[in-house]
């Protein structure tokens, strides 16, 4: 591999629409790590809404566009364990019966990583130059943890942020209740799960909660706000890229 791998950033649909700063944080971190970053224009969504709703045909159609949009890069990196897991594991499964494309899908899957684990495991990043004077607690998003084995990597890098201390919550690996369309189809169940998560977060006394998936973060921020629990909610990349000074936490009033 060349010393400066060509990385395609998969921005993810939620980050694109809701919190583009996470995309810029990813861009900054990847460049700092020595990657040449490109942003394929034809990308939209990884297809999970269709895939998880049982609409396999649409999921497959999107998988095919992803195959094209992300062809020819050394790596594909997404600031989301869930979307990276979709491309890494589920996209090959969607295409496995197509002898023409199966190998390409598997190859693409194997080159796809979640941002933080890519920085540590592939690029060998061991520290970041960032500052945040807060006590944070880290929520392990389900797909990142169980599909991609992301657990130690974000904690290791967060440990090098000046002024930051980590306080673990009771069950960081228990689902926050987001689950894509689950959270709108079963709002009451989802809200109860989110409440349990927020109780665990609040018990740590941490001022900020971090995670690597915007879906979970929107759910946690939205529920914390509904319950008037004053915890700041951020994507881990914002902290690692030292962007917290100018960027209000998720769901906080705009600074003007």
């Amino acid at each position, binding site marked *: 591999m060349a010393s400066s791998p060509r990385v395609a950033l998969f921005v993810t*649909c939620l980050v*694109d*629409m*809701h*919190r*583009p*700063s996470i*995309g*810029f944080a990813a861009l900054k971190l990847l460049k700092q790590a020595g990657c040449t970053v490109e942003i394929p*224009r*034809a990308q*939209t*969504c990884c*297809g999970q*809404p*269709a*895939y*998880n*709703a*049982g*609409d*396999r045909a649409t999921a497959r159609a*999107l998988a095919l*566009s992803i195959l094209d949009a992300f062809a020819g890069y050394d790596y594909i990196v997404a600031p989301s364990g869930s979307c990276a897991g979709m491309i890494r594991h589920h996209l090959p499964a969607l295409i496995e019966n197509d002898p023409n494309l199966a190998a390409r899908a598997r190859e693409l899957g194997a080159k796809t990583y979640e941002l933080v684990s890519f920085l540590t495991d592939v690029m060998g990043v061991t520290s970041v130059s960032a500052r945040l004077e807060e006590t944070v607690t880290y929520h392990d998003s*389900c*797909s990142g943890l*169980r599909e991609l084995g992301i657990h130690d990597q974000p904690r290791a890098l967060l440990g090098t942020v000046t002024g930051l201390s980590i306080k673990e919550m009771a*069950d960081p690996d*228990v*689902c926050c*209740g987001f*689950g*894509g*369309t*689950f*959270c*709108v*189809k*079963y*709002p*009451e*169940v*989802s*809200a*109860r*799960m*989110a409440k*349990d998560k927020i109780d665990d977060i609040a018990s740590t006394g941490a001022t900020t909660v971090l995670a690597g998936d915007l879906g979970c973060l929107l759910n946690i*921020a*939205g*529920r914390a*706000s*509904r319950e008037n629990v004053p915890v700041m*909610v951020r994507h881990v990349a914002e902290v690692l890229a030292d962007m917290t000074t100018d960027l*209000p936490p*998720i*769901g*906080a*009033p*705009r600074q003007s």
Partner: protein
Amino acid sequence: MRPTSSAFIANAHKAIADAGLQKALARSKTNWQARRAAALAGLPEFEALRDAGRSIKRHVMSNLDFYLEEYAGRVEQAGGQVHWCATADEAREAVLRICRQAEARTVTKGKSMVSEELGLNEYLEEHGIVPVETDLGEYILQLRNEPPSHITGPAFHLNREDWEESFREHHTHLAADRVFAERKDIVAEARGVLRDRFTIADVGITGANFLIAETGSSVIVTNEGNGDLTQTLPKVHIVLATIEKVVPTLEDCATFLRLLARSATGQDISVYTTFSTGPRRAPDLDGPSEYHVVLVDNGRSSMLGTDFQEMLHCIRCAACMNHCPVYSVVGGHAYGWVYPGPLGAVLDPALIGLDEAKHLPAASTFCGKCESVCPMKIPLPKMMRHWRERAFERQLNPPVERSMLRLWAFLAQRPALYRLGTRIAARMMAIFGGKNGKFSRLPLASGWTDARDMPAPEGDTFFARYAREERAGRI
């Protein structure tokens, strides 16, 4: 048991509001989860055992007819009888026939989920036979006329106060000052009552955790010893088991026993593991004079060769529900049929139909915890997704969801149009919600805002901002 799975949302609503239930469910962490974790910590070869178990099951499922025939042959050699039943009706009738032949009035029962599946108690009662549950949990549920809410701890949803209340209502001999402060007081009371019933029962019905092909034995695992009394005291013993319970050898059975006890209760081995082979033989001091196996299919064989075949590997340890964040919020009854939790979300649609059970595979975040703890490594989320695909094909999901999905799919496949649409939406939302940073109500998104606020987006989309930065030469 009549299913109420189609009312999952209402069932869940009731469950979440039920303070007693929530108190009981909170025990999952300290009881099941912590004990399992401790047991696994002491068994480094657990992963290897899981793989071994899985490959035995795979082998059995590809040769199920062979092992069932071998098993049945051995049962008959040992003097027992096998009753092959394709449907629930056939199984109920077979049990009734055996009871009638024995002129049974009272039947004692060990814990059996298959019996719940068949609705056997009601059926026997309708035919003038009194079934008596002898498992403590099942016994209290029988008094309360409730179905189990959990497959290994059927009365998991009850608190000590509930037990006391039911005893005081039904055990009229109880002294008013009798205290039920601890679990052992409850056990003592139930044991006292049940002991008499054991001695008058004409037939004993047990389930089976495993059926061993090489010996024709059935195996039950309990912690109370009630199963042993159920199968040895009456003159007739009926084993009620489904076809996927067969394993080739005693050795294989040992592999599963090690996985089962640890996954279920965190024990190295359950207190009682009882093997029974045929009726009493000449030198035996006790045991039944008749031994029947009612071997039930009831939908299992139709899962063979499908996306759901691996569900037949399940050893009913309950680890999946003990670790499920949805089960731990709604409890077992919300699922509305015999098998709750992730196991039920896959199995129930196969047994009672997707029209009734469509919510169960849908009501999952796919967090993957169940698969990670399942001793048989059954890919439960993947199979739930397969059910969602079936539901989607049959248009069983709500029309609104389908049209939203269609709109989204249309846009997501047209990047230019998608860019425009998301840009407008993000801008609008930022304008209206930006000052507070959130929305507490949103048109078209009440599913979200009923349960939580919606944080406002930053304003422009990533792609719009990126294009601007690029034009300005800042990137």
